[in-house]
């Protein structure tokens, strides 16, 4: 509660009507865009996956900026540091799990283990 909120320009951490409307419109546009890409089959396969995931990540930043006001004024704050730490942990947990499980699938699938060992790793009895 150090700085009073007044009408002079400066950090406004609770946003303005304009910022909420921009954030809301952008979020709707991004959501509907991702939905239409999937329902109209405009692109398919891995390209579609990456595109809709990218749209979700763009929307994450739109909402962080316009709804949660994590912007330039918060650049040096602990909030931002905690957020960056959280993103790091989330990436390690999510991508690490997928990586490990895929690796386990590859090495421990009983039906295919012998084939993998012999053909792909070039190990023979």
């Amino acid at each position, binding site marked *: *509660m150090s700085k009073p909120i*007044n009408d002079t320009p400066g950090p406004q951490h*609770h*946003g303005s009507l304009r910022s909420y409307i921009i954030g*809301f419109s952008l*979020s709707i546009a991004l959501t509907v865009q991702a939905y239409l890409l999937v329902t109209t089959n405009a692109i398919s396969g891995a390209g*579609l996956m990456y595109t809709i*995931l990218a749209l979700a990540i763009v929307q994450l930043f739109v909402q962080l900026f316009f709804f949660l006001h994590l912007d330039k004024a918060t650049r040096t704050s602990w909030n931002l540091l905690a*957020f960056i730490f959280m993103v790091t942990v989330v990436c390690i947990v999510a991508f690490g799990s997928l990586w490990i499980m895929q690796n386990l699938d590859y090495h421990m699938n009983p039906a295919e283990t012998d084939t993998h060992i012999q053909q792909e790793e070039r190990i023979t009895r």
Partner: protein
Amino acid sequence: MKSLNLTPLPDVTSDKTVLGFWIYLMTDLVLFATLFATYAVLQGNTNGGSGSRELFSLPFVLTETLILLTSSFTCGLAMLAAQKRDKAQLIFWMVVTAFLGLTFLGMEISEFSMLVQEGNNWQRSGFLSAFFTLVGTHGLHISVGLLWIGVLVFKTVKDGLSDGLLKRFVLLSLFWHLLDIVWIFIFTIVYLMGAA
């Protein structure tokens, strides 16, 4: 602003209570990340049952998403009213937010009960266990948020708008916005990617 000696709303970047709550929210997101990872790993393990393509209705989920997104927006409008110390407008937008949140929760419960009635409950397969855990945890957070809105609105009507209550409204708005962000990822990863 009419009077200059009003205490301002807690500054999101320097208030200790807000920082503490923010750190809780970050750990909450780590919890969701573990559930997302579990879902991503178990997604294909349908144990011979139906997969996400057969089970989910995209137009229904899009409606849910837009309702929650609108509730996040009205929650923002409530915070603008709080900034102006406008008690009537704050209560109005909070009630609208709660109404939209309740509609969202109702749609989610009806989706769950439909799945369970068709025999696709959480005991059916690893995929469905992970699905119900992830989406159910989000629904639980929404329920807690609704209860919180109810308590704060009740206290505001009863005791008037104090600085302590305003601070709690700020924390509530952070909670509600982050639940919306989590839902964007549920919508994308569970529903859109499941149907693609």
